[in-house]
């Protein structure tokens, strides 16, 4: 089975559509969305409805911290993120709010675990930023492969037989084989707001048969989305970072 895994769409409809089109070309069997459907971007309602539609067709979607905040959860966020949530809330329909509130914190499939942030305590929304936090996440789970989002920068971690963590920055379009004898953690990049210096939407595929993980990019008109962020009156920084990819 080939999984298509996307994360941190952040209400960016053109980036989502570009990623879904690319994944269709890669012939994925099932889609997983690692949370943060909304927040930051100008299209919260259409993106939520699109993803809700995908879930009715069998996709798995998880709760992200921005999704929780948009439906009323108490959140500690920086000013830009909080302003975007305040802007997002009144723009979500009743059905979208219902969909976001019902998202699960984690999901399991075969030997895989899906979660938005650190798996050891998903509700704390801790970023898996380095080998130490990856270790904390890996030691807390039994799954052979854990997929997380939240960080917006692609990374792969591996827990070795001697309990050390190896970090690997993946190369786009180059398959990484995940040997079955050890535990792995893959941090998906962001579809709607990449922060690794490349503004193109980032997502990945995982082939459960060959155990190969491949990161992909799909470009879209990010300048147009940035303009719509400005037109919506959202913070300028949120527009800039779509163009710089940082």
């Amino acid at each position, binding site marked *: 089975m080939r999984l298509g895994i996307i994360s941190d769409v952040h209400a960016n409809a053109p980036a989502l559509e570009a990623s879904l089109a690319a994944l269709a070309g890669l012939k994925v069997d099932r889609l997983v969305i690692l949370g943060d459907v909304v927040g930051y971007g100008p299209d919260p309602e259409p993106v939520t409805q699109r993803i809700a539609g995908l879930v009715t067709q069998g996709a798995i979607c998880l709760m992200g911290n921005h999704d929780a905040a948009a439906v009323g959860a108490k959140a500690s966020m920086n000013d830009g993120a909080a302003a975007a949530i305040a802007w997002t809330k009144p723009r979500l329909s009743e059905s979208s709010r219902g969909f976001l509130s019902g998202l699960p914190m984690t999901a399991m499939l075969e030997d895989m675990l899906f979660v938005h942030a650190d798996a050891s305590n998903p509700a704390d929304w801790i970023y898996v930023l380095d080998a130490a936090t990856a270790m904390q996440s890996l030691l807390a789970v039994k799954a052979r492969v854990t997929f997380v989002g939240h960080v917006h920068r692609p990374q792969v971690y591996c827990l*070795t*037989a001697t309990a050390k963590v*190896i970090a*690997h920055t993946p190369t786009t379009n180059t398959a*990484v*084989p995940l*040997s079955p004898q050890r535990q792995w953690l893959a941090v998906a990049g962001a579809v709607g707001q990449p922060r690794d210096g490349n503004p193109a939407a980032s997502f990945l595929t995982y082939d459960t048969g060959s155990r190969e993980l491949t990161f992909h990019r799909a470009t879209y008109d990010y300048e147009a989305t940035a303009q719509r962020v400005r037109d919506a009156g959202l913070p300028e920084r949120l527009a800039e970072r779509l163009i710089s990819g940082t």
Partner: protein
Amino acid sequence: MAKTRLETGAVLDGFTIGELIHRGGMASLWEVTREGDPTSCLMKIPVLQEGEDPAAIVSFEMEQMIMPRLKGPHVPRHIANGDFAVQPYIVMERLTGETLLPQIDHVPMPAEKVAAIGAGLADAVEALHRQGVIHLDIKPSNIMFRPTGETVLIDYGLAHHRDLPDLLQEEFRVPYGTAPYMAPEQVMGIRSDPRSDIFAIGCLMYFFATGVRPFGDPQKFKGLKKRLWRDPVPPRKLRPDIPPWFQEIVLRCLEVKAGRRYPTPAQLAHDLRNPTQVQLTARAGKLEKDGFFAVLKRKGEPHRTLIDKPLEREAEASDAPIVAAAVNLDDMTPELAGKIRRTLQRILERSPEARLAVLNVLKLNRIAMDQSLDDEGNNKHVARLVGLKDWTRPMKVAQGRVTYHVLEAIDPADKILDYARVNNVDHIVMGARANSTMRRILGSVSGKVAMEAPCTVTVVRVRGAEE
């Protein structure tokens, strides 16, 4: 684990096990055949026992990851991997003949012969580096040859792949490699510098030319580290008949700081194949090891400062390209010459480690025996070399960065293409023939080169110069 009993005649995943070829500490090698496949294959099976060094397992995993991703004549063709849950193995093409190891009974060898071995080896390492892989265990027993002459590198158990997680990176405290050939940075645990392989080639050439291993064969970490501050005896001290150019090349490969070695195996191979063009430095004339106080001073420094820092981004071959300028001395306007030189200068400025090879093809007469002396009795070859140097002079390229080559051929385009293939040239720069009537009659050399070259070709033309 359902283990198949490994013995001659057993069948494993469709492979019939033949004779045991070799049983080593890390793995055993079996000849295997597959129905419908007439080629003879080799099955490598790791030694996995309770209490076994975990490095043996990790190293086999790495080899299973890297080998299927390699291609070309310088690596054994990968055929299949066996699942760790059942029986791990790697099936690959079986190469005939011996490794380079038995040749150590015949050292010291003449420098010219060692240079030829070194150049072939550097070609193989270049091919590997271009695929993002650093071998990190280059030694005679890991080197084989195809009947067609290409050097083949075997055993990828310690290799590092730029695009794959390096399972050996963090796993073990002791450095992995083979003591006599290990680069100083490798001793210090750095596994991501391609120039570690250049150090190993230098060790091998030193050993083959002198009969002595430059750093001995230390068995303990303390002994391994000594190469960070203690320089080897200059080869010419051991064997006075070794030419200075050879010592220059070998000692450059053995520089402690990777940044002082050849930036790429392609540049090393180029020097090994063009001994008369090697820029000699103090290395060539050195006849004694560094003095007591210099060594003592180095030994007292923090070891991390003796080696170069790991590269931020793993170097790609294109950062140190070999640029070939094909210069036609007989048919070039000053405008075109100026424009070609400016093009070259821009390339050299962008890539500070680039090497420039200036070529001229001396056209041979197709029918009559060519005479190498002109009417005045001057050697044409030497005259062309002088002409090439004069042509290049306005660019003010640092000595040692540029070499000059007069090639002889009936078809200049074929010769330039051949040169580019043999020397791993990355970029050919040449002028278009100015006179379009001439081009119509004689055909376009640059057109043929651009069409068939294995690398980038820039054809320089002066706008408005067409007749």
